[in-house]
């Protein structure tokens, strides 16, 4: 019987093929054909994932499979190759990437229709899907790194998609450079692991690590922290989160797919995939939790003050990934991945809904110029209601199940569990306020900009499906019980679950009070003194950009200017000059004269003979 597993290599390969077709056609294909290739390739990948998932889950006790796709070569014991790992974790990720990816591709087919670079857009999107699938399927950290860099490249290309505006190019560059800092750390981590364990195959590495290192070993802590560096870069967590809000310069479907649903969760995936390593290092694990808690609070405060619809969503993404990090840090592995999945649903929904709003309002981003859109854009409205409810973790939505599980596990955590829980709870409260602030301002009140008719069914269908997933996604349990160590069932009575349940609802009421009730006016608070400073401080995302600018960018530019004639370049120029000199010197031997050649041959023979006879021993 042929197994669907044998076709797993097609999952990343088909979107890659789509990329090649679109790339090689150089934009000469008609738009229908582009959409067919671009959407079709992801659809095929999604179908394959579905079949593989059915076969995997049909087993009573699913066995993870490693499928070797191909071995590049086998030279002197060195066998680089491509192997894929199919288990509950990679399956969940594949499902999210291809499922949400397909919906966003369908949506983009209409959203981007008027763009001159339609083909280029879909070629990058397909390349992204291929790279992301490679990332989650890779059985080897080196291969994972290839996918990791691939998605980084696509993110760069797509953030700067409208590169005619210099600001977009700058945003793309910022995203690329900031994540590069993390990637460098990650590469160092990989070197360190390879140095000590001699392999980068994930399964072998985990086994080897458990044998080699005791819990709390310094080396494993350093390795984990370096990997964490890569993860915080990609997942936009403290201290490398500054690139994500700027990355909203890309087209909205890109923000939905890459900068909300999939790529930015790669850091979470990395830590989950290497969780056995992190379990060896309590320090690293606690760092993950602290980073998560701090980031989720900082970003939530910032989201409260923003007025660009996409930036609000961007900060909420940072904040939600903070929850995932918190989950990983307290050992709630399954809940973290579960939240990753539900977040992918409702955040894609929110971004696509925002896209629909922006689409109808002629690329208006400022929420204070919107208002009363409830009647005109019913689908976008309901998308936002459902998406925000899930984001705020109101009961019965998907976000509720995942966030609730994270917070309750955090409370039980041995290491500062209650503090972490309190931070998460405050974050949940704030999340609820800023999400419904957005809903009430945009969709209620008086109409400020008259919208065009809502977009066609191609954009509506994905929204409707995502609404369903955002509501009911909590019922889909990812098959993770075989991947992660089992966690004790959490049962609490009394205040703790009540608070987790109640605070988001309180947040909703406060938002309603502030933004629906005409007499509520906060300007007295935010326009003077401390209130104003605090508001501006939050608005600038805790002055992080300012700080980094002073601390890193300006000194770097100064040093670069000062070192305009690069000192290190002199070494290379020196080498080049020596080569040139030797070249000039040696060409003089090529006289073109037969007699010279013959003499040199004979001299050569004599020299070889003399060496061979041992007369001179060089």
């Amino acid at each position, binding site marked *: 019987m042929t197994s669907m597993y044998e076709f797993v290599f097609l999952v990343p390969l088909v979107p890659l093929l789509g990329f090649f077709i679109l790339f090689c056609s150089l934009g000469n294909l008609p738009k229908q054909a582009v959409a067919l290739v671009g959407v079709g390739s992801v659809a095929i990948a999604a179908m394959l994932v579905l079949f593989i998932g059915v076969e995997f889950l049909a087993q009573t006790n699913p066995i993870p499979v490693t499928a070797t796709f191909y071995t590049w070569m086998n030279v002197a014991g060195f066998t680089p190759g491509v192997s894929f790992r199919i288990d509950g974790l990679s399956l969940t990720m594949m499902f999210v990437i291809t499922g949400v990816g397909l919906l966003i591709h369908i949506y983009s087919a209409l959203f981007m229709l008027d763009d001159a670079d339609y083909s280029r857009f879909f070629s990058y999107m397909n390349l992204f899907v291929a790279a992301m699938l490679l990332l989650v399927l890779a059985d080897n950290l080196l291969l994972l790194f290839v996918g990791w860099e691939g998605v980084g490249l696509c993110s760069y290309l797509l953030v700067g998609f409208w590169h005619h505006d210099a600001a977009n190019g700058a945003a793309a560059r910022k995203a690329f450079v900031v994540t590069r800092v993390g990637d460098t750390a990650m590469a160092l981590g990989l070197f360190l692991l390879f140095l000590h364990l001699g392999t980068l195959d994930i399964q072998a590495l985990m086994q080897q690590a458990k044998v080699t290192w005791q819990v709390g070993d310094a080396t494993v802590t350093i390795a984990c922290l370096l990997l964490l560096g890569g993860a915080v870069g990609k997942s936009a967590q403290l201290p490398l989160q500054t690139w994500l809000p700027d990355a909203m310069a890309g087209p909205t479907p890109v923000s939905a797919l890459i900068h909300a649903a999939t790529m930015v969760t790669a850091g979470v995936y990395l830590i989950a995939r290497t969780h056995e390593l992190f379990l060896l290092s309590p320090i690293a694990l606690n760092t993950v939790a602290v980073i998560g808690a701090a980031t989720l609070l900082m970003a939530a405060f910032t989201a409260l003050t923003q007025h660009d619809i996409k930036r609000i969503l961007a900060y909420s993404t940072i904040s939600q990934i903070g929850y995932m990090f918190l989950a990983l840090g307290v050992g709630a592995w399954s809940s973290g991945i579960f939240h990753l999945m539900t977040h992918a649903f409702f955040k894609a929904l929110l971004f696509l809904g925002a896209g629909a709003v922006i689409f109808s309002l002629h690329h208006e981003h400022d929420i204070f110029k919107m208002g009363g859109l409830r009647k005109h854009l019913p689908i976008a409205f309901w998308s936002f209601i459902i998406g925000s409810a899930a984001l705020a973790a109101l009961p019965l939505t998907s976000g509720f199940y995942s966030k609730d599980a994270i917070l309750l596990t955090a409370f039980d955590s041995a290491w500062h569990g209650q503090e972490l829980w309190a931070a998460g709870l405050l974050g949940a409260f704030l999340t609820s306020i800023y999400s419904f602030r957005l809903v009430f301002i945009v969709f209620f009140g008086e109409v400020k900009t008259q919208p065009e008719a809502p977009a066609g069914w191609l954009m509506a269908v994905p929204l409707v499906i995502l609404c369903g997933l955002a509501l009911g996604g909590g019922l889909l349990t990812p098959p993770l019980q075989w991947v992660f160590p089992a966690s004790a069932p959490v049962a609490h009575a009394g205040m703790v679950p009540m608070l987790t349940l109640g605070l988001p609802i309180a947040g909703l009421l406060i938002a309603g009070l502030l933004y629906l009730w005409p007499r509520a006016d906060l300007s007295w608070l935010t326009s003077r003194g401390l209130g104003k400073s605090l508001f501006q401080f939050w608005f600038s995302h805790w002055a992080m950009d300012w700080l980094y600018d002073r601390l890193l960018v300006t000194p770097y530019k100064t040093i670069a200017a000062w070192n305009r004639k690069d000192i290190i370049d002199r070494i290379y120029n020196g080498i080049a000059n020596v080569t040139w000199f030797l070249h000039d010197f040696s060409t003089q031997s090529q006289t073109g004269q*037969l007699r010279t050649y013959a003499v040199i041959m004979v001299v050569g023979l004599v020299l070889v003979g003399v*060496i061979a006879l041992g007369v001179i*021993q060089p």
Partner: protein
Amino acid sequence: MTTGLTGTDLLALSPFITLTGVILVLMMAIAFARHLGLTCLIAALGLLVTLANILWVAIFVDPQLVTPLIIVDPYALLFSGLIVIASFFICLLAYNYHQQRGGHQEEFTLLLLLATLGGVTLAHSAHFGSFILGLELLGISLYAMISYPTQGLLSLEAALKYLILSGVSSAFILFGIAFLFATTGTLSFAEMADANINPTAVQGGVQGGVQGSVQGSESLRLYMLIGGSMILAGVGFKLSLVPFHMWTPDVYEGAPAPTTAFLATVSKGGIFAVLLRFFVSVDGYQYQTILDGLFWVALLSIFLGNLLAVMQSNIKRLLAYSSIAHLGYLMVAFLAAAEIGGRQLAIEASLVFLIAYFTTTVGAFGVVCIMSRKLAARDTDQLPDYEGLFWNRPLLAAFFAAMLLSLAGIPLTLGFIGKFYIFAVAVDSELWALLVAVIIGSAIGLFYYLRVIFTMTKRSSVTEGIAIPKAGGWSLVAVTLILIGLGVYPAPVIEWVSAIARTIS
């Protein structure tokens, strides 16, 4: 002693018979009808039939020695196959090259096949008799092929240089063979291995103080070393290793582009096949001083080849220098075989490297052939002639770029696999000095290969209106597909070559 050829002998020899038959048919065809297309068609088909024959022998005929002269084993068949495939592509490229030139070029194809036969003979030789036979069959055909007056005096000058210097090198080789014959009393590699003097025994003799035999074996050893170094010098000329490399750029430049392609591949591959077989079967690796000499030859070839190429503005000369460096890399693998433990891997490395070198070189000169179709005083071999090729003929430029990247050893090309093998065996046999040389050489190499690629990306109208002919074009497509296909998925070749290396190590 066999008195005659048996049936299985004839079957084992059938590739020779087929190729010779094709040559005869071709000779007749030229005598009756002077038609370039027909000639090349017969030759190309004949080469394909020969290739099929080689494959058949490789699968169905057991390895055996046919007469003391010719050995038919997987190693020889691999080289024959490689040589025939290279000749096939060169034949198609030569057809396009000659197509638009006047005069009668049919004999060129005939000479090509004769030279191929010479190369095949070299690959199969297990005896100095067949070695010289193959060497001269190859050499004499090449003199005529080089002097084909497509570039006027330039070709003649090149042919004359090659003729005289090649004569010198043949003299070296023959003299060397005479020395070896004088010591061992045989010309067969196998018998020579039996008669070979064990140097440790000689050492022991000296200490033991048995005067007479010491004198005898000491002088025999001397003869062996002198003979060995003379043969190496002669072979070094054919392989264009420093310091016997002086002819290379001049002859590469002067010869018509298809001849250069042939000279760079078939001629060198055939000779290397004999050298490696000879060294392994008589265990030349026991002579440390010879290895010392070869060490310097390899080191200087890598450095000088790369240095000479750096600012070279003539593509054919550039490829000539690069081939000097590449043969230097090959010698690293050759030297790595000195360690018994690493011998199999080293032989495997040489074979893979040669396959990569053949593919890449045929492809690179193929582009030069296609660029040089116009009737002109010289081939299109100046660097500025290639400006703008990426914009005007993107596909041709892409092929050329692929070949250059393969020469530079960039991953996903066959050239990388070959280069990687060289690194692997240098590490395995702990040849650190040579490893450093290979690394530095590769770095310098990257510069001049990329320089050619950059030239092609310049905006220019120089390369407008270059027509890509069918035969040559499809040959390039095939070569590029092999280059990249095997670069991405080299496992089958590696397995196959590894099995062959096991048989002779």
